[in-house]
């Protein structure tokens, strides 16, 4: 939640139909988001955890943890901990993600 509003990444796109995801789907997607973020930020000295399905905890390897509301704040916190940007265009990151096996 940002300023009381869910960040756009936290929900399915608005739809005119009645096929909105239900609560269970949202919980599963949230847990999958956490898993995907942790895959991306591996090597940045921290991990992400869900906190009560409403916020996230960024936990550093040094034991410090911080509650953040949504992905933009996650990226900022990870950057602060790692001392470098989390760059989706980084060739090394893309090579690592490409080497993932199902």
């Amino acid at each position: 939640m940002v300023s009381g509003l869910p960040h756009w990444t936290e929900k399915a796109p608005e739809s005119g139909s009645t096929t909105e995801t239900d609560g269970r789907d949202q919980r599963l997607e949230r847990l999958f988001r956490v898993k995907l973020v942790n895959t991306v930020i591996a090597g940045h000295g921290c991990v992400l955890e869900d906190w009560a399905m409403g916020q996230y905890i960024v936990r550093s390897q040094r034991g410090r943890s911080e509650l953040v509301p949504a992905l933009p704040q996650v990226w900022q916190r990870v950057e602060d901990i790692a001392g470098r940007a989390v760059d989706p265009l980084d060739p090394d990151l893309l090579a690592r993600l490409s080497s993932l096996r199902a």
Partner: protein
Amino acid sequence: MSTRREALPVNVLTGFLGSGKTSLLNRWLQDPALAGTAVLINEFGQIGLDHQLVDTLDGAPVLLANGCVCCAIREDLKEAILLLETRRLAGEIPAYRRILLETTGIADPAPILATLLNDPELRHHVRPGLVVTTVDAVNGHADLMARRELAQQVAAADVLVLTKTDLVPSADLQALAAALEALNSEADMLPASEAEATLLLTADSRMGSAHSRRRAGSASPHAHSHGTKGIHAHELPYRATAFFLDEALDWTSFGLWLSMLLHTHGRRILRVKGLLGIAGTDTPVVINGVQHLVHPPYHLPAWPDGDDRSRLVFTTDGLDPAVIKDSLQVFNRAAQRLRLAADSSP
């Protein structure tokens, strides 16, 4: 404010200093089609003195405090809109159906849109409408090259209005149009003489305007133009480039990827717009972002042209679109593999 009604569109009229915003606004305000429009203007600049014109519309102009809407007085924008609502509910001003905000010449539209979208109190009352940007055909060349503010205004536009077109040779006008298209290939572009007030009415419908739906559907991977003389598109620090994706996108992965991209490279990305084919759904999702801000994504009822490939247009200051596309695909495939791994684990 207990009266519930659908959030009203706030249309933004912007454009660089001296680009003809005031003239256009003055003309629009004479048009009966805009009856029921509340107008918010800045004192900064000449329009602040034109009370009479705005008075004819709603009888009660709300002047924003001096300075720039975007950086100095965003809170004032909120207060101005809430004051309008308070006065409407008190019966002090007539009911209105839309708001028209005229910004200063140096305003960046993105924080204005962010205020409209993200403020929890405002969101119940208003939503972003159209962004209309005036560009001076005489000075637009130089301003585009020199002023980031104008590039931001052009990139954020749904409609580009060329002013003073009778003062420049047609070849120069074509060159300017090509440069503008290089910055924002999705916006409608028209001379001020054809920019009727009624275009604002297209934003009256919910879930984004018919205009923006149509333009989103036209997102083209061929956003490339050549000028003839004067400014050339390739000389601009920013340009729009587009690409198609054949594979369906994982929505959770896409949100993660785009938020990460905008966090790290947002200052270099003036605009992102597109249609996405999302795995598990049949209808396309409209994406519309201005700098760090992303409008709430929404589904269209159908693909507008029968082509169900995802398409994205980025306006950047030199980020390689091939690298952006490759990154998106890598993230998407990584998400697919993670899901497969989760499904196959005991």
